């Protein structure tokens, strides 16, 4: 951190990055586990709908479940084998709630299905590229897991001008993107050029934090041949890899709070996603494996491992020679935004950038005696990359004044964790914020439900009323008919009577 950084406060924090030595270790490929557990929801949006049956044999890369709805992503078999179950497993999610997954027993052959690639992606229609990316089930691999095809199509529609390749990787401990840029820079740049073609963007900026000089050099070397692709080192500061912050740093453009990046003509893709897009277009390969950083003081052999989607975290750890000491905390993702795992029997999914086994010293944070009172030091205010007042939001939440917290901008909070990281009182600010956002969402849902119920009730009441009315009307009509008939009969009788009388 330079002198000027000390003088002029910036958003964000400078956590100890702890990326090495894991980042410098060569990538290892994990052998295929015997069973893979492939969740149907590995993305933002609706879960995919399974199209295979239990007992069915599948090839590697074969479609297991197809997207349903506007925002969803296809799921493919990570190896060849037999579908042995479609049902609930423990999800890689802090709730520990079960999630539906397809369980595959590997046949050991790892045979690919027939894949359709393309030698000249630049001859493809942009829309066709988005279609093929959708078919390959590519989602944002930096953690957002937004279906990439939806983003590509959106970018094309919005006529974006700039693609940002996000190689920030600002989370400490993680180095899968770093490794990918060092080892497969050409693939990433190819992916960048394909996405430029698919969206009509004129230029691409590759943002890489300057704590990754090897990755910067590798990317620069490849990008030198393509003037439209520019590698731009950015200062190392968490959360530089967050979309809005990176866009701001690279282009000076501030994305309006309730808009998306393409409203300002920008599309952001993680470098891992770009490599996956390239594999999907060039070789027709769906996203069935990914690079996962295994790191943390409790591990024997930290490093990056190529892991098939659906392998259990437990197996990945075992492959890397297991634990050196009992970890105090297991985390999926990075330490700043990752989620704590209750145990390691959860599958690796498309967004799993890292599995961390932290020692007690590394995971230190929460005060054992509970948080101290806020001393209003303002550290959280200076750290917040969004410009919020975490202390004020927390104070409102502590007194159950949720709408007060919203007035202070709770909904703009990106849960980056900077505030809690710096808080000397060790108040679990992010926990407060996430909890409140959850409560508010639940309230919102309850309100919608109540409204829906109210509508239903109203509709029912109206129906019943209409029915009774109709019944009454029918009855009245019938009665009227009957009366009329009676009258007619009476009249007829009366008319007949005299004659009868006369007859009598």
């Amino acid at each position, binding site marked *: 951190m330079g002198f000027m950084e000390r*003088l002029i*406060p910036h958003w964000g*924090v400078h*956590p*100890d990055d702890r990326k090495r030595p894991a980042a410098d270790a060569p990538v290892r490929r994990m052998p295929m586990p015997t069973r893979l557990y492939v969740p149907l929801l590995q993305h933002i949006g609706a879960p995919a709908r399974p199209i295979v049956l239990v007992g069915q044999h599948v090839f590697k890369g074969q479609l297991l479940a197809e997207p349903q709805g506007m925002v969803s992503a296809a799921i493919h078999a990570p190896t060849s084998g037999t579908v042995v179950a479609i049902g609930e497993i423990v999800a890689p999610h*802090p709730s520990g709630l079960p999630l539906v997954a397809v369980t595959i027993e590997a046949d050991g052959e790892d045979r690919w299905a027939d894949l359709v690639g393309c030698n000249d992606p630049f001859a493809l229609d942009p829309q066709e590229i988005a279609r093929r990316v959708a078919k390959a089930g590519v989602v944002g691999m930096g953690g957002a897991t937004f279906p990439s095809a939806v983003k590509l199509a959106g970018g094309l529609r919005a006529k974006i*001008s700039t693609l940002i390749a996000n190689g920030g990787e600002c989370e*400490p401990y993680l180095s899968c993107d770093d490794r990918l840029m060092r080892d497969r820079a050409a693939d990433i740049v190819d992916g960048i050029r394909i996405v430029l073609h698919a969206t009509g963007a004129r230029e691409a900026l590759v943002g890489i934090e300057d704590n990754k000089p090897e990755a910067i050099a590798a990317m620069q070397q490849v990008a030198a041949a393509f003037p439209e692709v520019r590698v731009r080192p950015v200062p190392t500061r968490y959360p530089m890899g967050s979309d*809005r912050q990176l866009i701001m740093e690279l282009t000076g453009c*501030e*994305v*309006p*709070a*309730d*808009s998306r990046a393409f409203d*300002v*003509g*920008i599309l952001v893709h993680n470098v891992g996603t770009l490599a996956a897009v390239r594999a999907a277009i060039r070789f027709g390969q769906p996203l069935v494996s990914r690079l996962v950083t295994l790191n943390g003081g409790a591990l024997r052999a930290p490093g990056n491992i190529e892991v098939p989607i659906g392998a259990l975290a437990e197996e990945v750890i075992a492959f890397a020679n297991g634990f050196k000491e*009992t*970890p105090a*905390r*297991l985390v999926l993702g990075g*330490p*700043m*935004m990752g*989620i*704590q795992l*209750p*145990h*390691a*029997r959860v599958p690796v999914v498309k967004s799993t950038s890292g599995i961390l086994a*932290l020692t007690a010293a*590394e*995971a*230190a*944070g*929460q005060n054992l005696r509970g948080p*101290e*009172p*806020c*001393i*209003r*030091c*303002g550290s959280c*205010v200076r750290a*917040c990359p969004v*410009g*919020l007042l975490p*202390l004020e939001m927390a104070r409102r939440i502590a007194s159950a004044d949720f709408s007060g917290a919203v007035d*202070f*901008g709770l909904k*703009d909070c990106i849960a980056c964790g900077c505030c809690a*990281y*710096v*808080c000397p009182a*060790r108040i*679990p600010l*992010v*926990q407060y914020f*996430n909890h409140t956002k959850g409560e508010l969402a639940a309230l919102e849902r309850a309100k919608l439900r109540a409204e829906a119920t109210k509508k239903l009730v109203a509709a029912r009441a109206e129906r019943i009323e209409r029915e009774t009315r109709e019944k009454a009307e029918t009855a009245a009509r019938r009665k009227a008919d009957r009366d009329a008939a009676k009258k007619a009969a009476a009249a007829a009788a009366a008319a007949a009577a005299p004659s009868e009388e006369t007859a009598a």
Partner: protein
Amino acid sequence: MNPISAGDVIASPHAHGGGSVCMTMRRVMFALTPATLFGLWLFGWPAINLFVISLGSCLLFELISQLLMGKSPTLGDGSALLTGWLLALTLPPWAPWWTGVVGGFIAIVIGKQVFGGLGQNLFNPAMVARVALLVSFPVVMTQWVAPQPLGSPAAPGFVESVRITLTAPPLPDAVASASLLGHAKTEQSRGVDLVKAFASPTAPVTSPVGLRAGSLGESASLLLLAGGLYLLFVKVIGWQTPLAVLAGIAVPAAIAHGLDPTHYLGVGAHLLSGAAILGAFFIATDYVTSPNTAAGQLIFGLGVGLLTWIIRTWGGYPEGMAFAVLLMNALAPVIDRYLKPRILGRRRDGRELEPAQS
């Protein structure tokens, strides 16, 4: 067996910068240490007694109030100790024992605990105590002594010092001294202009090193400055508040002195006497009672500085730092309300930015 017990899920982040309330307080105390040691040396045993009594009273009152309210004591966070420390530094060095005790009571019980404890108080506890003492006991609170360094022939020994602390005998003429600001005020009220007032050889002088009469810990300006810079460096405080306070004093002082040196003290006299440096770096920067944003701190600091200068120049008291801090404390919540940081992607009023095509 799985080594991880499925206990409560802990929310992110799973890392922490390592700071703690206690460490922050310790750093502030560390920064105060040189100037404090200097003050204790300069004014000898009576000052040491007073210092110990102030700190002890604050700790004791903190403990008692927390026990009475059924809270678990938090003496370990160091905040009560720091309050006592700051209070002691602003007392006349030979003040009697009860100023420390009464001051401790006012600071901790009235200034802090009745508001709800750490982080809840509106006013700086040490300044509340100091002002309350000054207003209630103006004579005792303005009784300055000339420096009597430990080991110098005139300095009272320990036994003598206990007598001074316990009984507060009237100071002998050889010991009593005026502070520079006090001298200026008295002379001016007698109609003597400042140039003449400071021409006499017995007039108080400014001394960056701190060999001058004044409160227990405010005299060693350079040592206080060093401590303040240390706090800046370790980022316990930002530069905004101290700079603004000093500017708030220095700018009007320079202008007024330039226009009329017979009625207005110069910049040096203002900054190097009284509590200017102590106040700028250690008192106006109090987290709880000052604004949370950089812009807010600038305004707050300027206010403190300016009010200090105004009170010193035209007010009834020779020193105005404590009053100025309290007045601005009252404004801090207002400043915070109006100077919220701008949220990314929003205008100041909270509405969304207009999208600008890149």
